[in-house]
């Protein structure tokens, strides 16, 4: 490997002009930011941004429509999960974080339902394959929320009772069926 050096010009070899140039850039940004921060405090020029830093958590970056956040389960009109416990999400999950126990539903038209549905978010890698695999419009990752920290592993095990209550982020909803509303439209099973 050859390291290509940069031969300094005569002006650069004095250093003084280069230091002055650097100081000028720094002070320009400092004065500009300070001026507009103070102006914002006084209620002036609100449309002109000051520093580029996002003041999280007071301020949030707008999420992409495709952003994958915490999971939710779409609900039927009666509030029960649309999940039919087909275990396709469990099968496709590359980190095996979804655990389903299926049971016989009293309604023969539904037939199969999840007795328990758990997502272990400590293992989840947020790949979104479960969302894609779901054949019955049940599992989505469009809540727009990040996982909350918990004090125990139990806190980070999301169960169906909790998942079914989550709502999609307005504008980001990927299901054609709003949770708990209307008949199923995009559902090959017709359930």
């Amino acid at each position, binding site marked *: 490997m050859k390291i290509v050096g940069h031969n300094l010009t005569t002006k650069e070899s004095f250093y003084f002009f280069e230091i002055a140039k650097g100081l000028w850039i720094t002070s320009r940004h400092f004065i500009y930011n300070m001026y507009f921060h103070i102006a914002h405090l006084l209620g002036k020029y609100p449309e002109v941004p000051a520093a580029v830093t996002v003041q999280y958590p007071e301020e949030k970056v707008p999420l992409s429509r495709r952003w994958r956040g915490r999971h939710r389960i779409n609900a039927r009109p009666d509030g029960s999960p649309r999940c039919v416990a*087909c*275990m*396709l999400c469990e099968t496709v999950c590359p980190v095996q974080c979804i655990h389903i126990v299926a049971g016989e539903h009293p309604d023969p038209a539904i*037939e199969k339902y999840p007795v328990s549905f758990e997502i272990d978010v400590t293992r989840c890698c947020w790949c979104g394959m479960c969302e894609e695999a779901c054949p019955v419009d049940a599992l989505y990752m469009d809540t727009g929320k990040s996982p909350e920290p918990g004090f125990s592993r139990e806190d980070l095990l999301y169960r169906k009772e909790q998942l079914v209550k989550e709502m999609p982020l307005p504008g980001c909803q990927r299901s054609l069926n709003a949770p708990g509303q209307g008949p199923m439209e995009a559902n090959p099973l017709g359930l």
Partner: protein
Amino acid sequence: MPTLTIDDQQVTVDQGTTILDAAKKLGISIPHFCYHPRLTKVDACRMCLVEVKDAPKLVTSCSNAVRDNMVVFTGTPKVEEARKSILEFILINHPLDCPICDKAGECKLQDYYFRHSRQPSRFKDYKVKKHKVVDLGATMVLDSERCVVCSRCVRFCKEVAGEENLGIFNRGDHSEIGTYPGKKIEHNYQGNLADICPVGALTAKDFRFKCRSWLLCKVDTICPGCSNGCNAVVHFTLRSFDGIKGQRVFRLTPRENNDVNKIWLCDVGRWGYSFIDSIDRLTTPALKKGEDFVKSDWDTVLRETASGLKTVVERYGPSAIGVIPSPHLTNEDLYALKCLFSCVLKVTNIDFKLPGLDKGEGDKLLLKADRHPNTRGAELLGLSGTGLSAEAMMEKVKTGEIKALYLVGSDPVKYIGEKAEEALSRAELLIFQGTNFNASCKLAHVILPGATFVEKEGTFTNYQGRLQRINKALEPLGEAQADWEIFTRLGKRLGSYPSYKYAEEVFKDMAREVAPFTGLSYQKIGPQGIKLTLPEGKS
């Protein structure tokens, strides 16, 4: 012997062979639903149509016998078009609920659709609604909507199980399978209905919704349900959280073996696997302290056992030890046991024949009265009749002449009753080695957990004297170990004992020492088993 050409390949088959069987011989698979090699042919599904040169129309390959110089084409555009149309016809009223269907992944309709059709439905009308979740009996559930009316189940009940209670009702696209009014399926071969059903119409209650078929691993084994030794495949999962918590084995399905079970498996054997993961499995070695069992480790327990047996032999001689093995054990386990007790400790009181061992209820097809897979093997190894009988041992334990009793998977309390319970409670040293807790285990002083048939390698000898292999599918539950392994560890503490590392080594020694097994090896036994040349008077 007619010679015919199928897809440009020549084959010579017996007179009367069907085109489908001849093609199978060449490795060409022709799709079919209603045809089953062990049932009569009905021509119901029309899926197996092939083109025969000079025939005016396509012919069904499952029912047409071959002729000399016949020229058959199985993959011409005409045949493919016919298959596509038949599949489209079948799928008109099919509910397409593959995500919740237990058959998904091993469904013929699914496979054929992807292989031969792959077209969206053109049917715009409403599908015919039929009965779903129909209870057909103690073990079967019917979903008429999924049914393709191939009538395999109807023929199976009539021809194999000999019980006519299933039939096809109504006509056209309303036809559905059902039991005759007021009847249920009652025979002992119901599980086979789920196997032969090409779609998910008939599902077993036992397996229903427990696990998806693609998550299951499969290993060849032998059904331990009775002395018939039916060839089976054990379906299990290695992912601990699949299905119901802690369940590892989900079902047994039959494996074809013309000499033993044809292609069937009875319900007693099929659903007899539950003891493998049941709550009463012995998983840790334990010692009795006072009234309770205290969990221990292998070293302590083996030390206790070895010193206990040694003391008894030194003080009272080897005749004060009795051993009752169970014919549930493999030949390897029994040989290791025989080595330990007859060769190392010189014990003669070994008898596996508890009274009433073969008093189950058998039937004419597969199920035998003797519900133990290796009774014949135990007989051939000479584990009976060398000393006292098991019943006599009980008497001697009661009178105090036998001080130590070693039970290997056997349950004298179950077979002999209260008398045995009284005797066992008087034993000075009672060692129980086995897989599950039982009434005799309750009285034991030392518990050694053993491995079940899916957790170890080995061989079983069935009632005909056919030697067949079982394979290890899973690691033993908890700290349990294969029985031959326990005997090896125990043998090392008691005297000079060969250090076996694999079941195959035990078998090699057995093949050298025991007459009927001479010259055999695991390779020679193969997947289908091998018939032993039995000494005269024993066949």
